[in-house]
């Protein structure tokens, strides 16, 4: 997500992005070290109107990023007068967008793909990585489809292995690239100590999966990708988003995974986020959470009984059946999370991960405080 900013002074020489790190902040005045995309230098950035004696180059920042603090990294796009926050030191999980290009075109994509030439995004990431805190807990990569950037993306993972070996790395990929054994092998050859790839599979039926991702033949490639990765003992998580087209065969899908893909390390059953394409398709995709509560519980149990690790993401506890609550995880980032006034009366309020702010209206009718003592979440994992 980029924000509009005002660039003061002469930036005209730069037609690509400039990457900088916030090195100090006093009230509304920040110092930013620019270290990539231009000659190294420090500049001033501020949230309030400028004093008269400003330096030759400065940035006036929009109020919606007032949380910007020391240790954060930004990319500035002088040509269009925008900036993007690449890394927030205070955030528990930072996700880097690797590319907006994707070979799937999912009905509910929250980050709709664009066919653009955005290799610069990888250069920015490569520039930042050596400067990130060595005690970083976790880092994520999303797209688009990161594996479409091939060798250059793998270079980033090798860099992480060497620069931040203690940092867990999670990559979201549609898995299709790994259907080529050589790609799976080069992934395994990285020998990263803590690397997991999250791969979405939406059905036990090829035509349903291919419809949801809008790509014929994707199911076979994704399944083969998972098999190739597991044959090389790579950590794989399966992700399924719950909506009208996945819920119908959800229990059968769970059985299919338990039977055919039992080697995967984790299965995430995920509530729908109304972002991107999902907004346009919400009338088609949205399902009454109570209607599918039983199917969801049975799917989670089927996987759990077969010995897999299972989590339910993105759904408040009150729309889950008691059997399913055991698997619920507080997965929604603070800034996207929503609770309701009624939630203050709920005995499970502190264990509940809430709902997406984006689905606030759709979820509202189903929010009912729970007044009982239930088991603490997720003992199964």
């Amino acid at each position, binding site marked *: 997500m980029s924000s509009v900013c005002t660039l003061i002074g002469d930036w005209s020489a730069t037609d690509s992005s400039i990457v900088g790190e916030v090195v100090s902040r006093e009230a509304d005045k920040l110092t930013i070290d620019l270290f990539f995309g231009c000659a190294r230098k420090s500049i001033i950035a501020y949230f309030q109107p400028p004093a008269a004696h400003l330096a030759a180059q400065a940035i006036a920042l929009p109020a919606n990023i007032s949380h910007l603090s020391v240790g954060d990294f930004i990319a500035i796009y002088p040509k269009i007068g925008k900036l993007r926050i690449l890394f927030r030191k205070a955030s528990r999980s930072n996700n880097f967008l690797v590319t907006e290009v994707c070979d799937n075109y999912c*009905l509910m994509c929250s980050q709709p793909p664009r066919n653009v030439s955005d290799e610069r995004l990888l250069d920015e990431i490569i520039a930042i990585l050596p400067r990130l805190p060595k005690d970083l807990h976790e880092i994520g990569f999303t797209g688009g489809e990161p594996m479409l950037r091939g060798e250059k993306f793998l270079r980033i993972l090798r860099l992480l292995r060497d620069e931040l070996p203690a940092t867990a790395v999670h990559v979201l990929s549609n898995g299709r690239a790994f259907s080529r054994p050589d790609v799976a092998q080069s992934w395994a050859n990285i020998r990263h100590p803590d690397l997991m790839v999250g791969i979405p599979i939406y059905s036990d*039926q090829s035509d349903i999966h291919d419809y949801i991702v809008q790509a*014929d033949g994707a*199911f076979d490639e994704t*399944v083969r990708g998972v098999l190739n990765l597991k044959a090389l003992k790579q950590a794989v998580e399966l992700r399924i988003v719950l909506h009208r087209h996945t819920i119908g065969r959800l229990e059968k899908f769970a059985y299919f995974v*338990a039977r055919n893909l039992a080697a995967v390390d984790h299965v995430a059953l995920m509530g729908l986020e109304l972002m991107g*394409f999902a907004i346009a398709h919400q009338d088609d995709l949205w399902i009454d959470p109570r209607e599918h509560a039983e199917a969801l519980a049975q799917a989670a149990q089927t996987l759990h009984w077969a*010995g897999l690790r299972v989590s339910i993401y993105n759904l408040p506890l009150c729309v889950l059946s008691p059997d399913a609550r055991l698997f619920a995880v507080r997965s929604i980032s603070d800034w996207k999370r929503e609770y309701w006034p009624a939630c203050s009366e709920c005995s499970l309020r502190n264990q509940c991960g809430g709902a997406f702010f984006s689905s606030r209206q759709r979820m509202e009718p189903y929010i009912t405080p729970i007044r009982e003592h239930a088991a603490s979440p997720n003992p199964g994992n």
Partner: protein
Amino acid sequence: MAKFKLPGEFFAKELHGYEFLPFKFHRLKTGRVFVSNIVGEWLVLDKQTFELFISSSLKPAAAAYADLRARHFLLDRDSGVAVDLLTVKLRQRLQHLRSVFGLAIFVVTLRCEHSCPYCQVSRQSDDRASFDMSTIHADAALKLLFDSPAQDIKIEFQGGEPLLNFELIQHIVLKAKRLSEVNGKAVSFVITSNLATLTDDVIAFCAANNILLSTSLDGPPELHNKNRPRRGGNSHQLAADGIARIQSLLGPDRVAALMTTTKASLSRAVDIIDEYRRRNLHEIFLRPLSPYGFAVKTNWFKAYDQMEWLQFYREGLRYIIDLNKCGERVIEVYASTILGKMLTSRPGGYVDMMNPAGIGSRVIVFNYDGYIYASDEARMLSEMGDKTFRLGNLSADSLADLVLTDPLLDAIEETVLESVPMCSDCAFQPYCGADPVYHHATQGDAVGHKAFSGFCNRQMGIFEELVELMDTDPEAARILSSWVRQ
């Protein structure tokens, strides 16, 4: 936004019908048809759907089409991953072939203070050292075990009553733990005991070394004591006290109990299960008698036929499922072993139900007298004079000598179920075991004629019962599915 395509556009336009992937079928008493394939995937179809399917006339729009495709009974042009997935599942199911000697049984003594008429191991009452295992033999057995490729070793102490030679158990446990540290192998221990001679020292030793206990509990006092006589007639009391002490001192899950069905048990399934519940034992293994030892000599084995036992089993299973429906979690172990093979792609680890047979490979038995046997049943048979499955002697033979003997290899090779007459056509074969020792004991041949096999009759009865339950009662199906959790 680019145009999105409609669902139908992702189904291969020119399917040209479908191909069959290999499968077998079995007509159920309900008229419906059970179909299964080589990796154990299965479905129950109504007769009409089944006939459409086998005549290549099932339409993609039919509800069963998607299920048959997902479980790899048919292959169409829309997806080709079925073959990749079948390969992976087959490899998984045969995984157990890589792990040898997961179970090593040490018969530390054949002496016993019980005198059960159904004893399958022909226990000795003489208080003579000639029925105890020697330290030299125990050490040789440990050396053989830890020199073998086994990585994850479970040592089970059997008898007789193994606690009558507790000194040797202590010696073996401590030595095995030292060896496991040196060799980087995992080792765990189980003592199979009637608990009549359970002392505080034994409990303390089990606590210190994380040892599980397994005991016999045949039912309520009068039934148990009738089955398991000992001087004083107090076998039940001692077992129940022992179970309670272990549960309170070592933990509720540190003791398991097994029952053996005698003629007197047949009418008492519910009483037996209630007895387990009374003792806070939530896993019950409804087990028939086996044709070995005194059980044969005393004719107890012949006292009932498999059909009577199956009736008993059905009654017990239904009662256990009803308990679960009322919210009480109780598991029947025989069913859960089969269900593990029906509902997951894991290989089953229970030796009697392995294919190829796990005798001499998955399990090995070190007898009190230094002889080595291919399974617990093999040494039971030997006490009756039939040494067919005796592999060798601890003082004389190397590991290779033992496991490469012809009688063992022949028995395993001949009983691979995919090639056994009647088994090769049986839709329940993926869930069954070979049990060559049983067939050798009852028919004088490791393969046997399955039409006259009590093992086969019993297994078929249980398979049909489980499938019909899952097919007709969704709640029972959920309960049974939950039993596969390990």
